[in-house]
């Protein structure tokens, strides 16, 4: 079962960009934010979704699996590290294979960059920068028990479906309690939202 990790609750996200700014301050990617904050239903609602690396466990880190240079390593505690600078050849395989759309690439520097769960902080028991500053708790760092103690009645899901594949992740999403047995849809096949086709 999950240890300390990030729990994402998009329902609480107010799109304030605090996590993005905090991520930018983090030492492991100084000056660059690894958090994606997307306004998923722009013009229709204020819904926003913060995305950090989900630290896929099974299939184990697709980004690392497709990497031709063995540049992405997974630590013993399940944290998928960003690319090793000496190995990464900047091919962008990881960028396009990640089902969650997480890694970024700097084509000039031939270097991939992604959220590594603030490894410089979490390895020492500190919460990642994003979770520390999030004003609404949309990004929560701790154990499931801690989360549930604070928010009675919530459940978490750590499995996503993409087409016919299920991806189990180290980072989980908060779901209403009655939906917990249901893996979270990953968005593939492309879905409709509120009865409207979102492909276009």
């Amino acid at each position, binding site marked *: 079962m999950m240890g300390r990790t990030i729990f994402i609750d998009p329902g609480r996200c107010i799109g304030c960009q605090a996590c993005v700014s905090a991520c930018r301050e983090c030492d492991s990617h100084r000056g660059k934010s690894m958090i994606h904050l*997307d306004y998923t239903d722009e013009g229709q609602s204020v819904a926003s979704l913060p995305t950090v690396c989900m630290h896929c466990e099974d299939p184990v880190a697709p980004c690392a699996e497709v990497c031709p240079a063995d540049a992405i390593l997974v630590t013993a505690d399940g944290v998928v590290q960003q690319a090793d600078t000496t190995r990464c050849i900047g091919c962008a395989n990881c960028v*396009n294979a990640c089902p969650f759309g997480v890694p970024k690439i700097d084509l000039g520097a031939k270097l991939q960059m992604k959220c590594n769960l603030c490894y410089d902080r979490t390895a020492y028991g500190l919460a990642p920068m994003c979770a520390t500053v999030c004003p609404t708790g949309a990004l929560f760092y701790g154990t499931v028990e801690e989360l549930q103690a604070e928010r009675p009645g919530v459940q978490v899901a750590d499995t996503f479906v993409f087409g016919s594949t299920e991806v189990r992740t180290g980072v989980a999403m908060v779901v209403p309690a009655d939906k917990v047995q249901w893996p979270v849809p990953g968005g593939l096949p492309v879905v409709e939202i509120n009865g409207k086709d979102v492909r276009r």
Partner: protein
Amino acid sequence: MVGAAVSGLLILAIVLGSRLLRNFDSALLPYAVAGVFLAFGVAYRYTVWISAPGAARLFKQGWRSLFSAENFRQAPTALPKMIATYLGFQKFLGARSHARWAAHQLIFWGCVLAALITFPLTWGWFTFTSGSGSGPGYEMRIWGFKILGFDSLSFIGWVMFHGLDLAAVLVIPGASYFLWRRMKDRGASTGQRFGYDLIPLIALIVISVTGLLLTFSSIFLHGGGYEFLAVLHMVAVVFTLIYIPFGKFFHIVQRPAAVGMQLFKYTARQDDEVFACRRCGQPIDTEPYVENLRGTMRDLRLDFDEWAEYCPRCKRVLRGSAYLTHVKKGFK
């Protein structure tokens, strides 16, 4: 298998190149043996590496683009240019930081120089003979053939005999910079492993410093401490050579893969084969590249490979939409 074949070939080359060991300097035997181990290790690791799905496909595509007719017709200069800017001058490192680029160039050229001297010398391919017994006129021979004659007291002569010292002088500041950076830069030290990240730098510095001390000892100390230093130097070098295929230094062998990758993308770009995201139309990558990645994903049984046809942002937005629709019912 491949490893054994490659080391066999190298031994053969050593024997022939040193004119049936006549030019082989037995004092350098440990170095030569380490060289053979190195060849074995690199060949072995290379085969393992290149058989993983991601690398295997890229490897094939890289060579295919190199030998394709398009490449010869449209971009005959692309490959040499990429090799020079990418492998030689490592332009991409400049985009990471200028200091890192400069430090890496120092290490790189220092090591290239050192390798060019050391390997042929320890394999008995190079010999320096003096026509008149004790100099100053020297001849440099490769595989027994005279290449050039020089005066050991001239500038060229000095450079010839101090090539390794020059290499050390290049490597020391470069490696020291990286060591210093690893100590103080939190970005660099995140997830850093002693054996992987620090040992190689320390090894480079030990080799260079002991190498310089050898010269120092022979010039200023009349050889004082020479033997001890020589052993230390040799141990460091042998250890490093054997370590190359298994640690951080393997990137030296892997880097050229990047040229293949770029050539592959470059050739497709020349033909305007760019793949646009299915949802927003932003270019994702070249078409053959996306196809190649999908193949890799299928090889790995990641059967959401059609997802590679959407850009990262659209993947996130679609997932967000799916979550809203099915999990949170659109915040109603």
